C-alpha cells in the first residue's frame, strides 16, 4: 500500500512516516521545499515529494499512484493566528486540493488530521468531551479545521477524521511566553507515537471510513495544566517559571471510548515521564 503523507517533515508527520515505513508501507512524504527534511530523508521506503499544498497541480502530482492519503499539513498556532488568509489557504484549500486530486478514483481514503480545538472552549461542560459535542471555532486554526472536516464529509470520497489532542514529544521543549491554557484547566495530551499508531490503525480498518474519532492520551493523561507542566519539567530535571493563560482555552478531557478500537493508547503518562527522564540524562540535564 502506498501512502501520501502531507506535512511529512513536521513533528507528527515524521513520526507517522517512520512508523509507517517500519511497518512496510511505501510512503510518499509531501511538504514544502524549504522545511527541514532531515528527520525523514534517507529512510527506506520513503520517497520525498517537495511541493506546496496550496498548488492544485503539485498536489495532483503527489497523489498519482497513491492508495491512501494521511493529511497532516496545516498551518498551526501561533503562526495560524497571524495570517488568516494563509491559514485558510493552507488548511482549507489544501484539503480541497487533495480531495479534488482523489476524486477521479473515489477509492483512496483521506485520513484527515483534525483537532480537538474544533469543540471550542468547553470548560463549562461536564467532561469528557465526546465526538458529538457541538463544534465552535474560536480562532483561525479551529475554524479552518471545522471547514476542512466539512469538505471531507461532503466530498463523496472515503474519509476518516481524527480529532487529535495536542501532541507531546519526549524531548526538551521551550516554554512559550504564555502557556495557552489555564493552570487549573483540564488538559489532555497524547504521546506522538500513540497518535501515529492511531493513524496507522485507521488505515488498516476500513470500518472507520465515514467516522470521526477523538484521539487523546487516555485517563492517565487527564490532569490540570499546572500538573502537566510541573510533571513534564520535573521529569526533565529542570526548574521553570511558567506563565499560564488567564482565560480558558479549547483544551479539555476527551471521551476516547469510540477510538479505543484503534488500540493506540499504548503509553501512559508514567511511561512518558520515564522517557523524559531518559532524554534528560542524554542531554546532560540530570
Amino acid at each position: 500500500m502506498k501512502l501520501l503523507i502531507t506535512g511529512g517533515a513536521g513533528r507528527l508527520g515524521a513520526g507517522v512516516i517512520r512508523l509507517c515505513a517500519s511497518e512496510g508501507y511505501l510512503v510518499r512524504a509531501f511538504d514544502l521545499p524549504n522545511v527541514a527534511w532531515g528527520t525523514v530523508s534517507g529512510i527506506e521506503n520513503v520517497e520525498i515529494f517537495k511541493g506546496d499544498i496550496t498548488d492544485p497541480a503539485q498536489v495532483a502530482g503527489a497523489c498519482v499512484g497513491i492508495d491512501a492519503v494521511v493529511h497532516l499539513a496545516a498551518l498551526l498556532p501561533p503562526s495560524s493566528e497571524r495570517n488568516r488568509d494563509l491559514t485558510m489557504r493552507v488548511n482549507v484549500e489544501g484539503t480541497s486540493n487533495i480531495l479534488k486530486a482523489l476524486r477521479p478514483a473515489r477509492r483512496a481514503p483521506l485520513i484527515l488530521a483534525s483537532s480537538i480545538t474544533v469543540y471550542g472552549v468547553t470548560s463549562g461542560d461536564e467532561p469528557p468531551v465526546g465526538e458529538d459535542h457541538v463544534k465552535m471555532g474560536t480562532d483561525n486554526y479551529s475554524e479552518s479545521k471545522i471547514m476542512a472536516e466539512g469538505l471531507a464529509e461532503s466530498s463523496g470520497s472515503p474519509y476518516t477524521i481524527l480529532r487529535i489532542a495536542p501532541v507531546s514529544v519526549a524531548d526538551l521543549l521551550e516554554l512559550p511566553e504564555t502557556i495557552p491554557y489555564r493552570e487549573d484547566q483540564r488538559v489532555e495530551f497524547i504521546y506522538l507515537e500513540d497518535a501515529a499508531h492511531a493513524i496507522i490503525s485507521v488505515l488498516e480498518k476500513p470500518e472507520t471510513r465515514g467516522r470521526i474519532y477523538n484521539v487523546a492520551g487516555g485517563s492517565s493523561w487527564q490532569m490540570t495544566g499546572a500538573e502537566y507542566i510541573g510533571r513534564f519539567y520535573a521529569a526533565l530535571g529542570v526548574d521553570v517559571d511558567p506563565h499560564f493563560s488567564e482565560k480558558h482555552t479549547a483544551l479539555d478531557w476527551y471521551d476516547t471510548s469510540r477510538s479505543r478500537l484503534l488500540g493506540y493508547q499504548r503509553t501512559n503518562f508514567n511511561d512518558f515521564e520515564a522517557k523524559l527522564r531518559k532524554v534528560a540524562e542524554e542531554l546532560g540535564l540530570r
Partner: protein
Amino acid sequence: MSEIEGAKKALEGVLEIIKGLKGITPEDRRSLLARAQSAYNVVAQNEKKIWLRTSLGKAMVGDLNSSSVTLLKAVEQFKDAAELESAMSNLEAQTRRIEEETCRRSMVVT
C-alpha cells in the same frame, strides 16, 4: 561572568567600536552595525532558553562566546575588511545555530 554574559559583553564592545571605526565607508559601518546588533538580539532573546543548559547548549554557548571575542579582537585591531568579514560570518553562523535549535524546541499546542 557566565559565557553567555561574556558573549553579550563582547558584542556590546563590538557595537561601540564599530560606531567610531576608521577606515570603513559609512555604508559598511551601517551594515556592520546592523549585523552585530542582529547577533546581539539573538543572544539576548535566547539567553534564558532551557536548552542552553544541556550539553549541546553549553557547547554552543562556548562557541558563541569564542566567536564574539574573536570579532571583538577583529574590530579592536582592525586591519583589513576580510578578517572582519570572516569573524562576523563565523558569529552569524553561531547565532543561526542557536535560532534553529530554539525553533526546533518550541512548544506547539494545537
